[in-house]
């Protein structure tokens, strides 16, 4: 004889990832580090944003980076060449980073003297949005060459974004008649409740100062840090 019973669970399926993310977040807080999950399509300019930040800021801002990459260490090598302390995570064929893989990397990553740790996620506008890594903020790099309606096609990614860096704006003169910035803004407003956007060019340095100010505002207030 068997007895059938229904068990109401109502638990997040990714609760193991969530607890690893909470662990990472505590680690960042202890070190006074603001962690940024930097996401975007392949080729959106995520690595270039960080290179330009180091170049135009002349290394004054203490940024470190962990770069997710399917198969190469190229991004981490570029970041190191730009003077940024960097490590890479090779995911093989996995399309996203998760909190546990970041946690394993943090074991070997020196956060001393670092104000901002940028986790450059795998180039992908779908999967990375699903996994919390323990970051304080989500930033999405969206290049003007990706078209006006990209946010509408990937609403989950943009709904979770705290900031969009609109990259490659130096190319806008070549896109006249094809891509209009107000149309990109309109798309964002329909998927992102607080459409914060910084126009950015890794080529000319436009937006670097504004991006650094935005990061500065993400730091916990001194009182909070003291009692955290």
């Amino acid at each position, binding site marked *: *004889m*068997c007895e059938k019973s229904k068990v109401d669970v109502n638990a*997040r399926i990714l*609760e*193991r990832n969530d607890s690893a993310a909470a662990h990472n977040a505590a680690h960042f807080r202890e070190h006074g580090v603001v962690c940024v999950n930097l996401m975007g399509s392949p080729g959106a300019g995520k690595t270039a944003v960080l290179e330009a930040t180091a170049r135009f800021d002349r290394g004054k801002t203490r940024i470190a980076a962990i770069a997710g990459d399917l198969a190469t260490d190229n991004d981490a090598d570029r970041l190191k060449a730009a003077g940024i302390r960097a490590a890479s995570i090779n995911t093989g064929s996995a399309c996203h980073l998760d909190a546990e893989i970041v946690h394993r990397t943090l074991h070997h990553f020196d956060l001393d003297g670092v104000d901002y740790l940028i986790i450059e996620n795998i180039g992908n506008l779908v999967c990375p949005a699903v996994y919390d890594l323990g970051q304080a903020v989500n930033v999405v790099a969206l290049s003007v060459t990706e078209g006006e309606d990209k946010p509408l096609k990937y609403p989950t*990614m943009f*709904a979770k974004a705290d900031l969009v860096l609109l990259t490659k704006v130096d190319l806008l003169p070549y896109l006249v008649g094809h891509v209009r910035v107000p149309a990109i803004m309109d798309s964002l*407003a*329909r998927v992102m*409740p607080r459409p914060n956007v910084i126009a950015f060019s890794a080529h000319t340095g436009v937006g670097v100062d504004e991006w650094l100010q935005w990061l500065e505002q993400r730091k916990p207030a001194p009182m909070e840090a003291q009692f955290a």
Partner: protein
Amino acid sequence: MHEYSIIHALVESVGAHAAGGQVRRVRIEIGTLAGVDAGLLTTAYEVARIGTICAEATLEITPVHAQWACPRCERILARGSKLQCPECDLPAALTRGDEIVLAQIEVEIEEGKESSHV
């Protein structure tokens, strides 16, 4: 294709809640803004359940449609509109639609065997 990793986490979670019973049915809720594809989840489940506690369990997926509302006046915003309350001028909040949740499992427990798992 993060659906496979979600299904692995699901099977693990079902095991934690099944209390040793034979799992017959698993019901999950997936929000339309969760960034997860129900079709791919089903395909992943068919492969991943083999040889696990879910081997004999059917998977039922309940979609949860995303809803944005004003945090002050609670007005529900029309789908596709700007995510700003036209009355209060406040950014909307997602009230549902990002769920990736194990809602319920149905288990069969052999009589007299129940206590051995406590």
